[in-house]
């Protein structure tokens, strides 16, 4: 050692490992327009597909005449359900155990449903050709109100499963019924409610919306008739699952199916499922022996592929007079649209809705969910949340506010009184989950202090008095939410997708010169995996992050994984990285022992190499160890330095957080202005604080959108309203409030590096926080609950009903 020998701190900093605010390496290409998305890929002889879509929400198809379209020069094929029937591909299986039409078979069940697929030399010809396909419909009575779905005289929607009274999740009660799912102890809950001194009961509608990634869904299929190989480029959050499904449906051996997810421009759950466009591009390519590309436009994206939410949640709480919550009952009517295409683990028809007891020690609870069909697009995806967790958190966080209002108690105090206490973890909830870790009181108290909660309440009291004196037309709302997420699906004992366990994987190879490649079963859609995964490897293996290549999305090279959604990448694949790294480190220790001529137990790991215990100057770095692994025989060891890990998590992880929103509402216009928003997140170990902050900003912006106006609406005839960015609310920088972020750290005890996942927390916690702010603003006028979305006209309407415009 001499003066030039780097210090421990310098060596650590050089790694840019966990905890470092490392800049996102993928942004170099994204910010220069050099990303490589599906629509950037051009193959020789490529054709383009486009859909003829249904005009009606519910109609019988009397006739499809494709002759004029086929006669248009440049049109190569027009596929209808009749063409797919011989292949048994007119329906495809959904992740929820139902089937969904690929091309409408005899009936259409929602507006814009796929009726025929036109394939042409370019997308302009295809667009002209779809206008030439003649479809004759006989209109049928549409069903848009889920509360009428199970009426005795409701129109029958799914003729294809008419007689099938046993669904994927048990018996069906009615021809429009999908499943009934119950968790918890109903009798015990009923007993509590029979005797509880205070009870609340309200129905909260979490409206239908859409994940709306900037890049729509798209695919490019290329079948080689000579070799029998099928290559599919697509917007897939879970490429391996797509490969398995394609192989199962097509009969092509999985080894000859190559699925590649290149750069993805946002997913948010929209790109988990399989859509008719993918299937049709594959079928057309197999039939024509040419590459066939399909690209959704914005209206198709918003109106057909994967809505989110649409849960009507009747939520009841029982408590003592002094605010100790005794029990919870929740009944959900779930509007699934025309097919049950929820992207949930197979055994969970309502996802993890049973996290709805939230962050509170509620001893007794019961949850019941009924899913029904309506004439709307199918979906039910987890839009920037783990499966139905946003719905669950919304239900409990609204219910707690309503209870506080009824008790005349401050809602933050009510939460503090009922939180699961630190010493109760691991905590078994009444609805079956084991929360791994948390310190809710610490987080809540820190947040309340940071925002000056008591002072805000005092200011609000003054403003309310001024409003009542007629001195202002503005009311102030304070939104509080405290959420517990359940992410990182999941342990294969209870989570699978079509039978495949929800593990994830990592394969790491250290090259002879000491740089490395990590290949993953997940797939980033913008989360920054290339940056953060490398940081985990850097810390675990002492290799600088900038020398670690992270590769995802190519099923030929990546180990099998279940993909990226439900905040599972860090909890599951992140763990696989650590475990694969540790296998390599164990081998490096043996090599180091040989090179240093000591017993391996006499070595200590030291940032980027091994040193002999008590002799810090006698050390060997990772670079030398890697070189040795390839260049000299080590007794009893294979050459090379690589490892694979398939990680099956023992439990989910449970990130949590405390959010506060201060909002001012103009009662005369209904316009709401967010004055302040503070988000404290606890996601366990923090791998890259800058990426966490970015994720929180993005998630809060989407939460703001959903709570304050973003919706997919239908009229009574089943026409989808406002499926364009003109009407569908995506906030710009102008509308987006300023975000303040903060954190506490409670590492997950069962995760190798203690990380819990964060990408979805801000959405899950944000939506109830905004909604609670709106509701809080008007609560002093007697309002109990106002449904989302809280766009200006609905807030105005609530104020109108409360009589607040009379004095104007």
């Amino acid at each position, binding site marked *: 050692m001499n003066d030039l020998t780097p210090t421990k701190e310098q060596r650590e900093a050089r790694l840019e490992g966990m905890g470092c605010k490392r800049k996102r390496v993928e942004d170099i290409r994204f910010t220069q327009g050099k990303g490589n998305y599906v629509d950037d890929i051009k193959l020789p002889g490529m054709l383009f597909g486009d859909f003829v879509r249904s005009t009606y929400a519910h109609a019988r198809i009397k006739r499809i005449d494709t002759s004029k379209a086929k006669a248009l020069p440049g049109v190569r094929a027009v596929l209808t359900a009749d063409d797919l029937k011989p292949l048994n591909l007119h329906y495809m299986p959904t992740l929820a155990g139902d089937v969904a039409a690929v091309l409408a078979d005899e009936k259409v069940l929602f507006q814009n449903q796929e009726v025929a697929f036109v394939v042409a030399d370019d997308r302009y010809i295809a667009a002209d050709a779809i206008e030439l396909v003649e479809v004759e419909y006989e209109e049928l009575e549409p069903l848009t109100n889920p509360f009428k779905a199970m009426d005795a005289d409701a129109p029958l929607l799914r003729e294809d499963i008419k007689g099938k009274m046993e669904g994927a999740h048990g018996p069906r009660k009615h021809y429009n019924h999908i499943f009934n799912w119950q968790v918890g102890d109903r009798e015990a809950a009923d007993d509590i409610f029979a005797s509880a001194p205070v009870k609340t009961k309200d129905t909260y509608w979490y409206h239908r919306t859409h994940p709306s990634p900037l890049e729509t869904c798209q695919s490019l299929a290329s079948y080689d008739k000579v070799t029998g190989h099928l290559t599919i480029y697509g917007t897939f959050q879970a490429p391996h699952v797509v490969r398995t499904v394609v192989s199962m449906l097509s009969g092509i051996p999985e080894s000859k199916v190559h699925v590649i997810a290149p750069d993805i421009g946002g997913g948010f759950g929209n790109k988990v499922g399989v859509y008719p466009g993918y299937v049709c591009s594959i079928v057309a390519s197999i039939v024509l022996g040419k590459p066939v590309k399909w690209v959704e436009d914005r209206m198709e994206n918003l109106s057909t592929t994967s809505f989110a939410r649409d849960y009507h949640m009747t939520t009841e709480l029982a408590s003592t007079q002094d605010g100790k919550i005794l029990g919870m009952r929740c009944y959900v009517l779930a509007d699934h649209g025309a097919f049950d295409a929820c992207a949930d683990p197979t055994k969970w028809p309502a996802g993890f809705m049973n996290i709805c007891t939230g962050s509170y020690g509620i001893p007794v609870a019961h949850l019941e969910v009924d899913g029904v069909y309506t004439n709307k697009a199918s979906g039910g995806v987890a839009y920037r949340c783990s499966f139905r967790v946003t719905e669950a958190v919304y239900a409990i966080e609204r219910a707690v506010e309503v209870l506080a209002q009824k008790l005349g108690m401050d809602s933050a105090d009510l939460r503090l009184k009922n939180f699961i206490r630190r010493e109760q973890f691991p905590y078994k909830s009444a609805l079956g989950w084991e929360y791994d870790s948390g310190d809710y009181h610490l987080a809540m108290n820190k947040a309340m202090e940071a925002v000056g909660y008591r002072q805000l309440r005092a200011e609000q009291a003054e403003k309310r008095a001024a409003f009542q004196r007629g001195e202002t037309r503005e009311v102030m709302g304070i939104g509080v939410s405290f959420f517990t997420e359940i992410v990182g699906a999941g342990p294969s004992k209870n989570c699978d997708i079509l039978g495949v366990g929800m593990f994830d994987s990592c394969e790491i190879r250290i090259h002879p010169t000491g740089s490395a490649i990590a290949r993953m079963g997940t797939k980033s859609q913008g989360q920054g995996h290339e940056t953060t995964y490398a940081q985990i490897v850097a810390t675990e293996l002492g290799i600088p992050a900038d020398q670690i290549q992270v590769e995802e999305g190519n099923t030929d090279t990546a180990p099998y994984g279940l993909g990226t959604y439900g905040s599972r990448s860090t909890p599951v694949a992140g763990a696989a990285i650590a475990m694969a790294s540790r296998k390599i480190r164990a081998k490096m220790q043996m090599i180091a022992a040989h090179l240093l001529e000591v017993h391996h137990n006499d070595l200590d790991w030291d940032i980027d190499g091994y040193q002999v215990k008590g002799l810090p100057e006698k050390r060997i770095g990772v670079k030398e160890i890697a070189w040795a692994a390839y260049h000299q025989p080590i007794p009893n060891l294979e050459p090379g330095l690589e490892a694979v890990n398939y990680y099956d998590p023992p439990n989910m992880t449970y990130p949590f957080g405390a959010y506060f929103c201060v909002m001012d509402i103009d009662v005369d*216009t209904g316009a709401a202005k967010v004055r302040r928003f503070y988000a404290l997140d606890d996601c366990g170990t923090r791998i890259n604080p800058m990426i966490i902050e970015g994720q929180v900003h993005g998630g809060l912006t989407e939460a703001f959108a959903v709570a304050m106006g973003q919706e997919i609406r239908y009229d009574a005839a089943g026409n989808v309203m406002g499926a364009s960015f003109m*009407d569908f609310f995506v906030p710009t920088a102008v*509308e987006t409030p300023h975000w303040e972020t903060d954190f506490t750290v409670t590492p997950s005890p069962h995760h190798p590096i203690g990380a819990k996942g964060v990408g979805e927390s801000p959405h899950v916690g944000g939506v109830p926080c905004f909604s609670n702010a709106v509701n809080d603003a008007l609560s002093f006028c007697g309002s109990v609950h106002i449904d989302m979305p809280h766009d200006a006209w609905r807030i105005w309407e609530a104020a109108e009903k409360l009589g607040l415009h009379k004095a104007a």
Partner: protein
Amino acid sequence: MIPGAFTYHRPKSIDEAAALLTSLGEEARPLAGGHSLIPMMKLRMATPEHLVDLAGIPELKGVCQNGGDIIIGAMTTQAELIASELLAAQVPILRETSLVIADPQIRYCGTLGGNVANGDPGNDMPAVMMTLDARYTIVGEKGRRVIPSREFYQGAYYTALEPGEFLVSVTIPALPDGHGFAYEKMKRKVGDYATAAAAVVLTKKDGVIATCALALTNVGDTALFAEEAAQILIGSRLDAASLARAAAAAEAIAAPATDGRGTAAYRTSIAGVMVARAVRRAFERA
């Protein structure tokens, strides 16, 4: 979202454009900034066979003063309206209005002519032109003619333009010194059409409103000239009662549709709120 086939023309003069539009007849549409027409074509709600792009005609651009009148070429963009010092000094309501149209990117393309001549009730400039009593100069097969803005709008996308005619320029008569003005627009987000909006230009004498012109955006088939509301205000010192009566008179002529911006009742009420706020602000400025 792909338009049907069309032929693109780019004339170099007003005469050439007029000759083209006349000869091509109803299958042709003049193209200004394209921010209404092109989306309609992508949705195939408009399927013109010919587009006559007016962007290559220098005479259609620019702002100038002729005596007391301000003359603005139809192809002047909203960004150019915002940047014009002449307009900032003489007709500041145009700058205020342009700044709430769409977003900066669109304002670099979107034109005054397109905004006033398309006949879309969601456009902001028609109401403003009515309050300014602007005149539109139009050219067509029969040469030039001038139509007052208050007589130009006939229904949604229906205007006094005959097939083959297009707007050349907008003439704004001189405004009195020290006039008060305001354009109040309620919208869901940047880039949106108004839920309701109100334009007002007024003058004061000895603390009393001497003249007043008021018009509403996007609460009817066309921009609405709110004559009665303006009459109520003339002679008042803007007391709460006359302001409320004026707002009520504006609401009485509003007939908005229920849409994603809100119910008809809500949008009508917002028209009244916008009128009250615009008048108050204009009164303070006068």
